[in-house]
């Protein structure tokens, strides 16, 4: 941080109360890293998703979950037991001075504590409340239990992903990993919250948002729904490439180093593309017969698509490291990429140019760690990780005493009574 006076983030000045489990914590991170003051309210003892690994040095501990660390940057943390009268009172005080409440409780839970939107709005007409839940606040599946895998299945992601029979006979459909059902829900929830915030700058009023993870996932399979609605087609799964109504040529090729390259060739084979492809392959002496003028005839290209893709392109990629194919092809304008492991990105020069990797201090450990950075560079109001994830109740005194005015002895009593 060399800036003497760093610009504030675009959401500076907003206070968000986050009461979120693994389904919604990413939304709080999105808001916090862009400058909002996100106060994470956890039950005494901490959120259960602090128990999700991997853990620092593989030592399980609620303060050492790397998953929790990643999804809870730029937040402050307080503990509050909403099942107690004191907890509800303090929450009411916080809600009265906050801009947004993000909550992921089962539908009806906050209402049963008289902390529903209607009640909270009485003291804060500008309040925006977003309930992000697996299925929304209404409907026959409202109270169903879920998980990332379940959402990927019902949302359609699983039905679209898997293997060609030739690659893995009898393979199951595959749910892509990484917890992306939660990401899908959180992206849409962020969008809805921001729309409500923009509207509030004009109208001065808050509102209630009922967001559904299932619906977010159901919206996130590109053209699959359109294929069905307009053509009645149900798509088939294919290895490492798009679902399709019938088989399409492969786009994933094994490189010399045993990793893969995604090379989008099929569907683009016109004479110009073939000329450029021949030049690329020829620069490694691998053009085969592709420089033959006959390949400037679209009909000849069409008749030899399999030869071009399955022989020439496949052999070319098999002769080189994936990274070399990737950069050589991109330098010549081909939309190809190496199928990388996440860790391979640490050395990516382009990411370094963008200042992507962030060093985050963990003062309690006396160590700094590298975190992934921003999707987008805001040139007038930068994204930043303002602090590592909060420790359990780390900001109880700061928020409940310094900001809400409790005395230190009251704080002690609340701790003894398991309110915080």
């Amino acid at each position, binding site marked *: 941080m060399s800036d003497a006076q760093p610009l504030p983030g*675009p959401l500076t000045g907003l206070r968000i109360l986050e009461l979120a489990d*693994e389904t919604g914590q990413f939304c709080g991170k*999105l808001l916090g890293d862009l400058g909002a003051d996100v106060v994470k309210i956890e039950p005494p003892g901490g959120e259960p998703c602090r128990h999700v690994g*991997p853990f*620092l040095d593989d030592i399980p501990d609620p303060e050492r979950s*790397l998953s929790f660390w990643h999804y809870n940057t730029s937040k402050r943390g307080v503990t509050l037991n909403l099942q107690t009268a004191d907890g509800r009172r303090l929450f009411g005080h916080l809600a009265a001075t906050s801009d947004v409440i993000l909550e992921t409780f089962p539908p009806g839970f906050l209402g049963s504590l008289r902390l529903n939107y209607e009640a909270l709005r009485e003291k804060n007409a500008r309040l925006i409340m977003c309930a992000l839940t697996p299925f929304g606040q209404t409907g*026959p599946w*409202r109270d169903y239990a879920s*998980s990332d895998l*379940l959402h990927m299945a019902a949302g*359609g992601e*699983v*039905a679209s*992903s898997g*293997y060609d029979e030739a690659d893995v006979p009898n*393979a199951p459909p*595959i*749910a892509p990993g*990484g917890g992306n059902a939660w990401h899908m829900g959180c*992206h849409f*929830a962020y969008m809805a919250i921001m*729309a409500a915030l*923009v*509207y509030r*700058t004009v109208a001065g009023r808050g*509102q209630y*948002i*009922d*967001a*559904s993870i299932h*619906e977010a996932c*159901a919206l*996130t399979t590109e053209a699959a*729904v359109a294929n*069905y*609605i*307009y*053509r009645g087609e*149900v798509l088939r*799964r*294919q290895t490492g490439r798009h679902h399709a109504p019938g088989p399409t040529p492969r786009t994933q090729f094994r490189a010399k180093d045993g990793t893969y390259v*995604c090379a989008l060739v099929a569907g683009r084979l016109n004479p110009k593309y073939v000329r450029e492809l021949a030049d690329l392959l020829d620069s490694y002496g691998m053009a085969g017969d592709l420089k033959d003028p006959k390949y400037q005839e679209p009909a000849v290209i069409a008749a030899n698509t399999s030869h071009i893709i399955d022989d020439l392109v496949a052999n070319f990629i098999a002769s080189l490291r994936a990274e070399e194919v990737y950069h050589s092809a*991109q330098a010549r*304008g081909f*939309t190809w*990429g*190496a199928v990388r*492991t*996440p860790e391979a990105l640490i050395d990516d020069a382009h990411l370094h140019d*963008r200042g992507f990797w962030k060093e985050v201090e963990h003062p309690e450990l006396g160590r700094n*760690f*590298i*975190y*992934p950075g*921003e999707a*987008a*560079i*805001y*040139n*007038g109001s930068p994204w930043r990780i303002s602090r590592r994830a909060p420790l359990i109740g780390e900001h109880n005194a700061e928020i409940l005493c310094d900001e809400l005015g409790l005395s230190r002895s009251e704080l002690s009593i609340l701790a003894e009574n398991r309110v915080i």
Partner: protein
Amino acid sequence: MFRPRALENIRVVDFSWVRAGPWATRWLGAFGAEIIKIEWPENERGRLPSTTTPQNLEVNLNTSGNFNDTNVNKKSLSLNVRSAKGLEIVKRLIAISDIVLENFSSRVLQKWGLSYRELCKIKPDIVYVSMSGYGHTGRHHHYTTFGPVAQAVSGLTYLSGLPDKPPAGWGWSYMDDTGGMYGAMCALTGLYHRNTTGRGQHIDLSQMVSSVPLNGPALMDFTVNGRGSRRAGYPPGNRTHWPGTPLVNNYRGPTVAPHNAYRTHPGEYNDWCVIVCHSDEEWQRLAQVMGAPSWTTSPKFATVIGRLQHQEELDEHIEAWSMTVGKYELTERCQAAGVRALPVQSAEDRVEHDPQLRHREMYLPMEHPALGLHKVQNAPFKLSGTPASNHLPSPLIGQHTREIVEGLLGYTHEELRAGFADGTFWPTKRARFPYMEEMLR
């Protein structure tokens, strides 16, 4: 009942095409912003080629079903921005707009004379969102992506598949959908910032880079613990752990079993369900739902470590049962007992059979002048004060040219006709659609 819209009076100049950019502005439109899509038929890749035109219609610029769903809530101005006159017109439009959004390669708008610096001269507080493959900053800014390439390079593809097999990846352009999300998120964030500070800005979004943080826990396992994802048993398919390999978290949540996809009756292509037990109690409930067969009482399945160790056998037993039940019935029986289970759903399943999506009115029919009446996807959130809505079908190409050029920008009808004659609003050698003839009368 009258409901105000969240983005009432916000105007977006939308240069975007194909999927990611249009998916971004679709949502700004759903919130009530006026989306003016700048199009040119000679290089329109969102409309053509089309693989989603109904079988009974001719494939043309106005009959792509996927284009329709991706571009509801927008207006279309056909305009040759690569001509001096076209550029002048678009500058007049930008001067009365709030947001400029595009998803071209990194230097395209700059080459047209519409760099952020130039945009600021036209509209000082403009919010400019560029959505390019690698961003406008960084040495590979000129690299290009489609969703699958962004997914490959960022590590997302690698996280999907069975161990010791090629990556299964994502069977669609997840990062066109998600890149679109980020485009809308950036635009709304920039707009909020403008409304509260009076200042616009350039938001330099990269499709590839925006994928990277989605691998957060996997990345942190490497940067903190030094453990990479290239290891035995990873990725573990639909499981949290692959039997016989080191017990390491797989970044999807807690490590538990059962956690898999299972075939269901009658065994057709998409007859699968997923079942997950997060605790011994949930496992005991599943055993009850299955009728408490004797194998479920075996001590080796009583603990989570045991179930993980004997996962092959466990999954075989569960699938022997699941194949006797339909996926929706299985879901109801499991969920009624407090067991996590849902069907694997195709698009047809979601549109036709999913009772929850039906209840939430996820797919409501809408009339389109060329395509007719078809269901359109709705928003996954309900805002009490300013609900998102689909209020316009996708525009026919150039459908709103007259409305925008004459009505909004104040050009005369004669100037509109002249612009059609000189190739500013439509290529002179290309046949016009009947509605264009109509607007020229």
